[in-house]
């Protein structure tokens, strides 16, 4: 702010619009007013928005709220059609609960590694951030591998995508979820690559937190799918 006393002991980073930031600016330099561009600043910043929260995070939560409607439609469709199948090719004949339980456990643990990555990023611990992000991507890949194996097994047992309404709704629901996990894996690997190459601009911790929110969302969707689709019999 123009009426701020310049103090050489003031912090050198932070929100551009704060009094401290102006104080930190080199004498004669133009004060920055790009509130949305925080560069590689290491200091948490106070978002100066009308809501008091960052727009990125607000948009992510709004996106996740809308995703509830997408998966709600897919889950409802499956529930409606789960009994519409040919003789001998229904859920009771196909499901392998121990195998799917192991897959669920893997995805659940990936949420733990993701939150540890977000925690490490908050501490500016790049090494552990990269490790936990990589482990999360690996666990996600394991889950997808399990899903591919499961789909292949079901197909070989006679359940194709167009075999029955049950098959169509099941593959659509779990396939959409699998695509979401795959997109999450790509984002995680991109995060690790960009972070290691120092190409991750802006608030790194917040970027990782946003990917983390997406990853946890695919986990909570699976929590519902696991119970509604696999554990509750048709």
């Amino acid at each position, binding site marked *: 702010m123009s009426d701020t006393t310049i*103090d050489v002991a003031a912090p050198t980073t*932070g929100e551009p619009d704060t009094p401290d930031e102006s104080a930190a600016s080199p004498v004669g330099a133009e004060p920055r007013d790009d509130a949305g561009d925080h560069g590689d600043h290491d200091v948490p910043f*106070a978002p100066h928005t009308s*809501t008091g929260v960052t727009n990125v995070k607000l948009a992510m939560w709004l996106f*996740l709220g809308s*995703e509830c409607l997408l998966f709600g439609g897919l889950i409802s469709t499956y529930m409606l059609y789960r009994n519409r199948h040919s003789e001998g090719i229904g859920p009771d004949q196909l499901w392998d609960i121990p195998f799917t339980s192991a897959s669920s456990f893997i995805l659940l643990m990936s949420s*733990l590694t993701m939150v540890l990555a977000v925690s490490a990023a*908050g501490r500016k611990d790049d090494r552990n951030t990269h490790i936990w992000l990589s482990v999360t991507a690996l666990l996600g890949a394991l889950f997808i591998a399990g899903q591919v194996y499961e789909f292949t097994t079901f197909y070989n047992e006679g359940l194709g995508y167009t075999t029955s309404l049950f098959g169509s709704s099941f593959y659509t629901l779990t396939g959409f979820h699998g695509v979401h996990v795959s997109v999450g894996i790509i984002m995680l690997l991109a995060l690790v690559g960009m972070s290691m190459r120092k190409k991750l601009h802006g608030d790194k911790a917040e970027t990782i937190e946003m990917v983390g929110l997406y990853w946890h969302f695919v986990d909570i969707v699976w929590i519902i799918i696991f119970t509604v689709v696999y554990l509750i019999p048709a």
Partner: protein
Amino acid sequence: MSTDTDTNDSQSNESQPDETGHEATDSHGHPIDPAHEDPAHGDHAHGASDLQYVIIAGILAAITGLEVLVSYLDIGPLFLPVLLILMAIKFVTVVSFFMHLKFDNKIFSLMFYGGLFLAIFVYAAALATFHFFS
């Protein structure tokens, strides 16, 4: 104006009142009390510790095991409610702790749970039109 916090360390940035006199907030939208701010944890001071995350994950894994166990047991009419309650506990735990919604600004809860309950209402109504619940 000259502020008396100019000589503080950089962590105090968040706690500065702006020139309009509004209370400063962190990136979660919470008012910041400089006396209680923890520089070592910065933006994530309101979340759980790593050990607590591990404990929560252990509880979630145990609930998953319990779900699988219940699915093999014959507990009669309690079968469906028990499974749905266990599912809801896992769901809320992940959202509240791993996604930090419990510690974050309430507007995020409004965005997420608004979408969730809208979905539940809309699709429950849609399923009802197909006599799913009868």
